[in-house]
């Protein structure tokens, strides 16, 4: 009990130094937590992917399209429950900085394949009934202040011209991991318009979404679909939605790796800071430890004192940083909602925070403890006075 009392009082004996160290750890944990959350957000699409959904795209590249006529051929495969399709529209709202994902899709089937996009019956009916209608995620609509019935114009980049849409529905995510920043409109509207200007670009889709009857059939269906279009003018590549999303992440793998490395560098820096603090503390207290050894306390007690003090400081900083992570992540997520539609501090991030703090606390205490244990009592006592 006294050992605990001493270590707690020691930890806050030099108030300024302890406060600055705790502040440093808190900021480091905050930075670490935010960086880990950025990485988690990056993978949010992968995590949210359904095991019973497949994506079919052109085998050469996602930028090449597939004929609309594939729809029926895909639907005929055993194990296929439903087929939908769409294109990446890539429209710009007012200015390029207002980025958000926008797609044209076959709305009836797409909404059924994506039950996580929760749309009220009236809004769904209004959307399906209006060829120029669109639905937007709750966060996206809130960000730009869109209300039902508002007309929104997107400037086409892949499909030139100004495209007017009427907001017919605002979907909510089924849970926190659902992206609420997307914009969907009718594929038919795009197809009919584009066919007038460039007939050769008509009846082409960017991707097919396939719902399978059972997740365990996914691999079998994917193989069958690709086999069907083997040696055609537009061969297909079918993969699970998860694999498809992972493919996108892989393109930005270097960035993710860089963020991961920065997050670990933050931890290493703060580890050096805490180690320095503990080294100074131990040097100051070497006399105290010598007295305790003189009185009969053993190496285990000294180890407990130094490790305990180090852990008290790092965990105090850690919990402060963790508490600060939530409002910081909320502000960060709000500011960058279109880039990180799902920006949630996950339990795994919090566990990593604590793990990092414990690791820092323990590693920072190793060398000071070794010094304090190794020094002879007589040498330690000589340092007093």
């Amino acid at each position, binding site marked *: 009990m006294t050992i605990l009392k001493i270590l707690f009082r020691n930890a806050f004996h030099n108030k300024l130094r302890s406060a600055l160290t705790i502040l440093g750890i808190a900021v480091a944990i905050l930075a670490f937590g935010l960086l880990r959350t950025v990485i988690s957000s990056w993978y949010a699409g992968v995590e949210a992917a359904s095991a019973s959904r497949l994506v079919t795209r052109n085998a050469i590249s996602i930028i090449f399209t597939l004929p609309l006529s594939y729809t029926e051929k895909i639907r005929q495969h055993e194990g296929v429950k439903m087929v939908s399709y769409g294109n990446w529209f890539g429209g710009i709202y007012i200015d390029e900085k207002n980025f958000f994902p926008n797609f044209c899709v076959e709305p009836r089937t797409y909404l059924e394949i994506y039950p996580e996009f929760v749309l009220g019956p009236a809004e769904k009916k209004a959307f399906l009934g209006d060829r120029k209608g669109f639905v937007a995620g709750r966060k996206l609509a809130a960000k730009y202040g869109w209300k039902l019935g508002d007309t929104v114009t997107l400037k086409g980049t892949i499909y030139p011209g100004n495209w007017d849409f009427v907001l017919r529905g605002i979907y909510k995510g089924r849970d926190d991991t659902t992206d609420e920043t997307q914009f969907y409109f009718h594929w038919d509207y795009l197809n009919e318009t584009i066919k007038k200007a460039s007939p050769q670009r008509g009846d082409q889709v960017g991707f097919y979404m396939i719902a399978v009857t059972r997740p365990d059939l996914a691999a079998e269906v994917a193989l069958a679909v690709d086999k069907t279009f083997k040696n055609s003018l537009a061969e297909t590549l079918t993969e699970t939605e998860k694999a498809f999303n992972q493919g996108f992440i892989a393109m930005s793998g270097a960035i993710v790796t860089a963020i991961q490395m920065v997050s670990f560098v933050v931890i290493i820096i703060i580890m050096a800071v805490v180690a320095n603090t503990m080294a100074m503390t131990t040097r100051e207290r070497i006399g105290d430890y010598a007295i305790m*050894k003189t009185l*009969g*306390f053993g190496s285990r007690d000294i180890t407990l004192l130094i490790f305990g003090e180090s852990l008290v400081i790092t965990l105090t900083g850690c919990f402060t940083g963790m508490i600060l992570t939530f409002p910081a992540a909320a502000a960060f997520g709000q500011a960058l909602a279109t880039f990180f539609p799902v920006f949630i501090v996950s339990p795994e991030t919090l566990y990593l925070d604590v793990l990092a703090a414990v690791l820092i606390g323990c590693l920072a205490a190793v060398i000071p403890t070794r010094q304090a244990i190794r020094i002879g009592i007589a040498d330690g006592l000589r340092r007093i*006075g």
Partner: protein
Amino acid sequence: MTNLPNIVEVRHLYKSYRRGSLVVPVLHDITFDIAAGEFLALMGPSGSGKTTLLNLLAGIDKADEGSIRVGDLDITAFSETELAHWRANHVGFIFQFYNLIPVLKAVENVELPLHLTSLSKRERREHAETALGMVGLDHRMDHYPKELSGGEQQRVAIARAIVTDPTILVADEPTGDLDRVSAEEILAMMERLNAEMGKTIIMVTHDPRAAQRAKILRHLEKGYLNDTGKGGHDDSQNPL
């Protein structure tokens, strides 16, 4: 001199220190006894080896050769862990710079060595309060060392030294950091512990006035125990 049995027996003790490749001899063939209930002062100039000898007697340093028996135990044969246990049970320490733990109150400092015993929390507190009462500091129990004067801190250190009822008390320059009045108080207290409680005290000092309060005075010169003689004052004149 009394005819009490020896509590400490030192035989052919050698100690040297290494400074790089250089071996510096500190103690040479030290042999002497200390009777139970004795108050011994070790004097000598700086570097004579008196603190080294005290450290060896107290089990906080190890001799190169020779033996030290305290009671029935040869402490030179002990491992570090055994020595730590032995110190906790048999030795009380009084240092020049008091060496109190700064983050503990006076009573907690005194209680500290009792954590290595089997006493309950309540018993530990009672013992600590009794010891502080014996040194006249029962009104300063909840004060931190920095809130106490040098003399008071040394009295707390004495309370800590006696709270476990040790076999021997070792004091290294106990008055070295005190003003004359405080030094007199501390010496009087040590005399009282020796006379009234029968505590065996081994004190290192370079202060002749402090040495005079001891019953036995021994001199160390360049690592040799030079003489054996009585302390500077007559027991019958001891006011305590």
